């Protein structure tokens, strides 16, 4: 047993981190929110160069195999950098199509997804009714009856509390029918679980970014003649934030190692709550400047809450955790 990332895994995360650190992601987020997808696409294509998107696609279709652990480590970095776009959904679509094992569909979509050039978004039964970023991605939908469709365009746009999440209703009429039946329902279940796992990883990264920025801020912001970071009330909130994140992290790793429903729900619950609490702490400790959209901190502040609720609210995750318990633990 060695419950730590291997050197290779850590190197991969580090590579992503430094790539994203120099990619001017905040500007891309703001452009994305304004409807200009160009800068975000440039970030994605640099990410694609690392092989990130290939980690959700089998080798037969130009992928690297389905590697949830590596992918999760990567999604922590996406969260840390605040990368916009339907990254979780694109990976979930890859998983859905892989699980369906329909040769023609796989050939048609998976290579593009592996290369990051053809992002996709997805709505599933029981999930959010709103498609994320459908105006910049292929919009897949699975109906309660088990019909997988590729929508043509998208329905009415709806504003999100995070302007960088561009929501819309799936278009009326459904679009091209790609597959139907129990196999679709089953594949959608697996895809939904991956979406939940990767959202958990993203939450962890968002929380880490919020904590790091806040720690830096309270060291340099001075009031009463001393850095506010020397005040105990400030310190203790940040200590609690670290605590939340550090105890969520191993849940995310474990879920990536064995993505069963209970493990994934536990990871999403803990990481989602940790990042949202990190956001509340970051906001409070920045004071009024934290309450402005001007400060880049706002990009993560606004993301934390929607991500906490996306692909399984805390309540849904708690119910799943209990449902998945076998009567005796061992």
């Amino acid at each position: 047993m060695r419950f730590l990332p291997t050197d290779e895994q850590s190197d991969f995360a580090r590579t992503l981190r430094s790539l994203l650190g120099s990619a001017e992601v905040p500007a891309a987020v703001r452009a994305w929110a304004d409807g200009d997808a160009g800068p975000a696409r440039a970030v994605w294509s640099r990410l694609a160069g690392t092989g990130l998107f290939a980690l959700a696609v089998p080798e037969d279709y130009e992928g690297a195999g389905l590697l949830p652990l590596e992918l999760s480590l990567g999604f922590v970095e996406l969260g840390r950098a605040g990368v916009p776009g339907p990254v979780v959904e694109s990976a979930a679509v890859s998983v859905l199509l892989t699980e369906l094992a329909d040769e023609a569909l796989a050939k048609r979509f998976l290579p593009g997804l592996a290369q990051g050039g053809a992002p996709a978004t997805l709505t599933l039964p029981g999930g959010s009714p709103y498609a994320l970023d459908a105006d910049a991605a292929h919009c897949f939908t699975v109906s309660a009856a088990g019909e997988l469709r590729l929508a043509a365009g998208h329905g009415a746009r709806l504003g999100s509390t995070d302007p960088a999440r561009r929501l819309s209703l799936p278009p009326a009429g459904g679009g091209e029918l790609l597959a139907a039946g129990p196999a679709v329902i089953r594949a959608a279940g697996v895809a939904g679980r991956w979406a939940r796992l990767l959202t958990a990883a993203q939450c962890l990264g968002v929380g880490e970014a919020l904590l790091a920025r806040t720690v830096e801020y309270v060291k340099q912001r001075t009031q009463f003649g001393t850095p506010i970071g020397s005040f105990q009330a400030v310190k203790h909130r940040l200590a609690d934030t670290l605590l939340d994140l550090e105890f969520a992290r191993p849940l995310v790793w474990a879920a990536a190692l064995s993505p069963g429903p209970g493990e994934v729900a536990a990871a999403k619950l803990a990481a989602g709550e940790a990042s949202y609490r990190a956001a509340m702490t970051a906001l409070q400790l920045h004071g009024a400047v934290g309450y402005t959209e001007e400060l880049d901190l706002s990009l993560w502040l606004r993301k934390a809450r929607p991500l906490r609720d996306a692909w399984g609210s805390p309540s849904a995750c708690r119910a799943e955790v209990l449902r998945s318990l076998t009567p005796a633990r061992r």
Partner: protein
Amino acid sequence: MELAHTADVEAFRAEARTWLRAHVPARPLPSLETAEGFAAHREWEALLHADRWSVVSWPEEYGGRGVDIVKWLVFEEEYWAAGAPGRVAQNGISLLAPTLFDHASAQQRARVLPSMASGEAIWAQAWSEPESGSDLASLTSRAVRTAGGWLLTGQKTWSSRAAFADRAFGIFRTDPDAPKPHQGLTYLMFDLRAPGVTVRPIGRLDGKPAFAELFLDQVFVPDEDVIGEPGQGWRIAMSTTGNERGLTLRSPGRFLAAADRLVGLWRAQGDPSDTALRDRVADAVVGARAYELYTWANASRFAAGAAIGAESSLNKVFWSQYDIALHETALDLLGPDAELAEGEWAEPWVFSLAGPIYAGTNEIQRDIIAERLLGLPKGRR
């Protein structure tokens, strides 16, 4: 990264499980915070020791099995899952023993460890004083040089299980003129029945004499009972507090077992429409799992050579808060029966309430986390 154990570890688990199944008392022992319970627990520890299960991680020469941290954690999982009794020898095993392994002479280890392993000598921790709690370095109990040893004078307090224990370990001021409070302290061991020692039990919230005050009046301690160099007491004491806050005092096995019992209680008498309570049960399950996994990650780090550091403070705040939340949830599930003092959850709940206070209060731990792990500036203390 992986979580699967080797076949060797699983074989060890099976051996432990078999032994525990055959030996764990069918009915819970009386509370170890009573004279009767203490005696019963001592017998249990002797039984554990006879088959070398009392201190599995110690070297064989002291009664252990020399197992690594992974097997120790697995043993703990089995121990608590089997419903085995709490350990009266715990303070000695988790605090004094690591200190001895790191700082004592071979002769001291040979003299002290075997009787600790067998439960023959139960140890109490004599650190806190009435005026020195969080600010432990301000302590004033003295040890004064005399022929062949030292004479202890002063008062210690909140000493867990000292009401029934045999010996104690603590820090004493040997150089009152040292320029700083952390200097001039000496770490030593003494007999709770030595002339000059008065032990006054203190009832905790539920009235049980779970800790005691110690009045020391010229108590003789031979040189051979000084651990490390005189004057180095603070450094020695601090080098082992990581154990107290960290894993050895509160291994995840304990919380996994408690969470299992809680789920059982919820299934038996939870109201399905009370989703708020259901959510707290789920949180207890997730918390136990998080603590378990966090510990496995740390165990992997230790196995790779890392030392216990300030992250033991994260551990301490986590398990102490977790323990209270879990027990409060159990009481809420019990409704009116929660009040019954003899109930299964009553004593563990009372015990959980002390978690944020002992082993360094959570306020002090948060300071350590903020300053040492986040690098925030020191404030006024």
